[in-house]
């Protein structure tokens, strides 16, 4: 079998040419495939044979997409779009395994949205623009659940969010004459989809899970050993030399009871306080915990040593002494637990430092008060609060549009006339250009101001439309009271459960919602499914439209957008100039880095407060009117 790649040019009936590049097909199928493609492009109902079916399906759907704006009258557009939605698939290779992959919106391609028809738009150009957007949106579906084959047009590494907003404009110019459809996969190449899936699997099976539980398991074993030691102290003489033991009366029983009680308290409190699955793996050892474990081990070891030497060897006969010995061990363990409680938990509660946390990408900052912690524990504390306090990081909202900043670049052009050596002139030229650019009046702040104002206005307009649409939609349904169910047989109303009610009222507000989300660049965070689920939730709990909208009108904390893949955990890197087990002190700066942004934490101590006292007698509050007298002399 000869593997080669071939190009097949097919004349499309409407006059545009498609250049199809297929990799690695068998030689003998060349003509057959060309022929089939020709037929396929003419009549969409032909289903070509076997293995090539899915590939050609994807090509065919691509063709359908591109044919849409030309043949507006032939078929019903919504039906075509639903078929497109079913057939197209894309993979976004750009998102690495670490970035959370938000589900892309696929709102237009559902059949219940068929009330919106193409011809109801205002102008042909807006229609054209809209179907370019539709085309991109239908391509951007999250294909992680689909098969291996994928059709990629964009290069991997392109950010997820820009595709829908800006690339449509680039494509507008060349549309209509030539369109190139390129498939990026063949049987022998690894698509981006496969790569991301493979790396995900690698991470899932990583030994992170084991490392997470190693520390607590060790301390649990040690604790159990320490708890069983007194029982062993008591039982060993009974088992080994029972006959020669002196009988022990009521004092022993009292000691038994106290021993049992103290052991129970130790057991319960250490389970409640210490044996919790940790929520973070720290880069270095937790100093205090190691210290305490070493202390416990030392204690128990020395007790065993003494026991072995003084009791087991000479076969001590005074059982009451042995019981007393065991009780003293338990007392010592209780005191160690008290020490651990103070060192590990209580010392951190009293606030001593103020941490300022700033996110590097957009400057969102918060201030927190913490107690005396080590750097790594403070980092964990900060991250706990990061997920609930900081608004979610939206990379689409970051920079000034290039149109404003790039005006500076187009400055003067400097021509050198007849000069031979350009090395001397280059610095002179650049300096001249800089000086000229500085002297020129710089109006980019003006444009920035107007752009901001325009953006605000647009957002507010869309928000107003959205609020009105949602309010009106909520008036369409009402909750059925229990007594109404039996009455009024003459107007039987269809009784719906919350999901159906949500779907019923979603249609009129969908467009306004979609436009608003697009304007505020939030569309990757909310898919249609999530919006309907939220709507159903709000309806069930009798919420007003305003309560439904609070989720979309303001960017919520990052926790709101987390998905339930918590088993893998979030990877953060602690960057610090000091060893991370050292305690916090004034002027310390460390940062927590993630792939695309970082949090910089600065430590300042809380000020010492001098509180004075002043006593005010409640009877001393007296008032007079202000004087303005006039005397004649």
């Amino acid at each position, binding site marked *: 079998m000869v593997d080669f790649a071939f190009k097949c040019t097919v004349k499309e009936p409407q006059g545009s040419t498609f250049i199809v590049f297929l990799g690695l097909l068998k030689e003998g199928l060349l003509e057959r495939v060309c022929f089939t493609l020709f037929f396929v492009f003419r009549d969409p109902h032909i289903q070509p044979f076997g293995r090539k079916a899915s590939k050609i399906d994807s090509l065919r759907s691509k063709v359908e997409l591109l044919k849409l704006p030309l043949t507006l009258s032939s078929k019903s557009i919504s039906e075509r779009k639903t078929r497109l939605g079913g057939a197209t698939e894309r993979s976004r290779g750009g998102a690495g395994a670490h970035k959370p992959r938000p589900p892309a919106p696929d709102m237009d391609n559902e059949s219940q949205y068929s009330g919106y028809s193409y011809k109801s738009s205002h102008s042909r150009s807006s229609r054209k623009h809209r179907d370019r957007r539709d085309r991109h949106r239908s391509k951007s579906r999250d294909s992680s659940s689909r098969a291996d084959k994928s059709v990629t047009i964009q290069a991997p590494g392109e950010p997820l969010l820009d595709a829908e907003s800006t690339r449509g404009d680039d494509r507008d110019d060349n549309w209509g004459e030539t369109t190139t459809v390129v498939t990026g996969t063949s049987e022998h190449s690894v698509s981006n989809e496969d790569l991301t899936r493979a790396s995900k699997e690698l991470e899932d099976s990583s030994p992170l899970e084991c490392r997470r539980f190693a520390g607590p398991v060790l301390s649990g074993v040690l604790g159990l050993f320490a708890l069983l030691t007194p029982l062993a102290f008591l039982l060993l003489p009974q088992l080994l030399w029972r006959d020669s033991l002196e009988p022990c009366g009521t004092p022993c029983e009292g000691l038994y009871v106290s021993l049992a009680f103290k052991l129970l308290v130790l057991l319960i409190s250490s389970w409640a306080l210490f044996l919790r699955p940790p929520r973070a793996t720290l880069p270095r050892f937790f100093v205090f915990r190691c210290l305490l474990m070493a202390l416990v081990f030392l204690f128990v070891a020395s007790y065993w040593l003494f026991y072995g030497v003084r009791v087991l060897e000479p076969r001590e006969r005074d059982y009451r002494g042995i019981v007393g010995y065991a009780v003293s061990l338990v007392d010592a363990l209780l005191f160690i637990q008290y020490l651990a409680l103070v060192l590990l938990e209580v010392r951190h509660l009293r606030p001593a430092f103020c941490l300022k946390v700033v996110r590097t990408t957009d400057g969102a900052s918060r201030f927190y008060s913490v107690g005396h912690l080590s750097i790594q524990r403070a980092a964990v504390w900060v991250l706990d609060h990061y997920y609930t306090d900081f608004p979610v990081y939206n990379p689409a909202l970051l920079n000034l549009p290039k149109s404003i900043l790039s005006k500076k670049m187009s400055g003067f052009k400097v021509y050198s006339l007849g000069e031979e050596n350009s090395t001397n002139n280059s610095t002179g030229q650049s300096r001249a250009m800089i000086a000229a650019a500085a002297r020129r009046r710089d109006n980019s702040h003006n444009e920035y101001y107007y752009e901001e104002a325009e953006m605000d206005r647009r957002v507010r307009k869309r928000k107003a439309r959205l609020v009105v649409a949602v309010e009106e939609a909520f008036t369409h349904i009402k909750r059925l009271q229990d007594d109404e169910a039996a009455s009024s047989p003459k107007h039987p109303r269809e009784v719906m459960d919350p999901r159906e009610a949500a779907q019923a009222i979603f249609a009129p507000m969908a467009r306004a919602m979609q436009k608003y989300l697009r304007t505020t660049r939030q569309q990757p965070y909310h898919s249609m499914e999530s919006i309907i689920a939220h709507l159903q939730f709000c309806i069930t709990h009798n919420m007003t439209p305003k309560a439904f909208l609070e989720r979309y009108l303001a960017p919520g904390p990052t926790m709101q957008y987390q998905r339930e893949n918590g088993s893998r955990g979030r990877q953060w890197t602690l960057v610090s100039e000091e060893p991370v087990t050292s305690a916090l002190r004034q002027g310390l700066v460390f940062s927590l880095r993630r792939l695309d942004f970082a949090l910089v934490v600065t430590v300042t101590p809380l000020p010492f407060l001098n509180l004075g006292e002043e006593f005010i007698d409640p009877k001393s509050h007296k008032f007079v009117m*202000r*004087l*303005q*007298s*006039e*005397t*004649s*002399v």
Partner: protein
Amino acid sequence: QQRIEIHKLRDGDNLILGFSIGGGIDQDPSQNPFSEDKTDKGIYVTRVSKGGPAEVAGLRMGDKIMQVNGWDMTMVTHDQARKKLTKKNEDVVRLLVTRKSLENAVRQSMMQH
């Protein structure tokens, strides 16, 4: 600043000067309509009776009285000012007053230099 000499008019048992005063350190300076600076607690002439000795002597409404017979009037209470003006054994009171128009003239002449 202007020096004004007022001869008191004897009317029965009283010696009257023919004007009214307002102000003082125990009074509310924001109510003073004549003062430029509303925290000024000085003594101001609030009314001049027509044809009285004060008008004859040249006192005008809105004048601020700085001294009375050498006694300072800028930091006195209302009652102390009244007492200084109505001493029974004095027939003549010599006032040092400041007028707003006078102030402006003084300021302008100072600015020219």
